[in-house]
């Protein structure tokens, strides 16, 4: 029998309430199996890391299929700006040689 029943996770502390009166927002990442990447599952509100983890468990992991959870304060994510998506992403699209399909596989190469 453990000597304590609570398990306070050490993690980022809560920020103050967001402008809309809601608790701070967290992004949730779930991992479905060992070695698989943690994938973005959604977001939720919580006042601190432990509560974010508990809420993520209840909202995103209760029906199984999850072996690991990450929660990250939404504010900690730096995102590319939608307005700059053109200059930011387009240059790669017209350079066919950046894609493997551009190259012919030489005869005699097996197992590709």
């Amino acid at each position: 029998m453990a000597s304590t029943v609570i398990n306070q996770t050490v993690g980022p502390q809560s920020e103050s309430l967001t402008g809309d009166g809601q608790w701070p927002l967290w992004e949730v990442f779930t991992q479905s199996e060992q070695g698989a990447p943690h994938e973005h599952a959604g977001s939720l509100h919580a006042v601190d890391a432990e509560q974010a983890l508990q809420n993520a468990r209840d909202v995103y992991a209760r029906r199984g299929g999850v072996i690991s959870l990450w929660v990250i304060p939404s504010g900690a994510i730096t995102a590319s700006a939608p307005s700059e998506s053109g200059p930011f992403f387009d240059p790669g699209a017209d350079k066919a040689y950046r894609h493997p399909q551009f190259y012919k596989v030489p005869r005699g190469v097996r197992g590709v």
Partner: protein
Amino acid sequence: MTSPAPSIVPAPVPKPNALFEYLQRLGDDRLILGHRLSEWCGHAPILEEDIALANVALDLLGQATVFLRMAGEVDGQGRNEDALAYFREAVEFRNCQLVELPNGDFGFTIARQFLFDVYDVVLLDALTKSTNGELAGVAAKSLKEARYHVRHSGEWMLKLGDGTDESHRRVQTALDELWRFTSEFFAADEIDAELGASGVAPDLAALKPQWESLVREVLDRATLTTPIDVPRLPRARGGRSGAHTEHLGHLLAEMQIVARSHPGAAW
């Protein structure tokens, strides 16, 4: 040969089946508390907590289903878990009174849940060593859920106790009101004694210090005062033998109305 004169002494009340009684206690605690928690559905402070409380309620109802199904089998009268949940009267329910108390404010609900969750963990942990293999198995499965429940309610005790002046005051008031109801957790009677002798059920008195130290540890950290066991208010008793507060009847009226209005209905 003359038949014996009719006796004026009432026939002795048959001794209740101890295991049937005990399984009803386990099942009814969880059924009634699960129903109480389900009343928060759509009313919790935020969406995430609404989902969390509903999840705990569903866990408890799931556990109640198993314990009451086992109770029905032991009883052997052909009653399944639904028959026991929906067609018994208040005096036939064997839950402790704490779980039937109305939800009050969020602080009261959390304090009630926390006190029960710690009891649940301590009791189920002991029941995993039961000489009744089926009971030990169900306890082991339920213990996993209970460990999460107490992590949730314990975390809230810290937040409310060590939060604002108002949250502290509300949760302390709730604790003070609830404390006298916790005596029923550990009040052993002849049912516990009979099942304890065969190793089916644990010694409740031995579990109390464990419960107290786990509760106290969280309350201390939450800057809350552990209510002292003084006979200021009458201790709750009798729930295990069918004596309940007025609140259970109202709860049952709502819980049982559909099943009783449409007996045998399936959906």
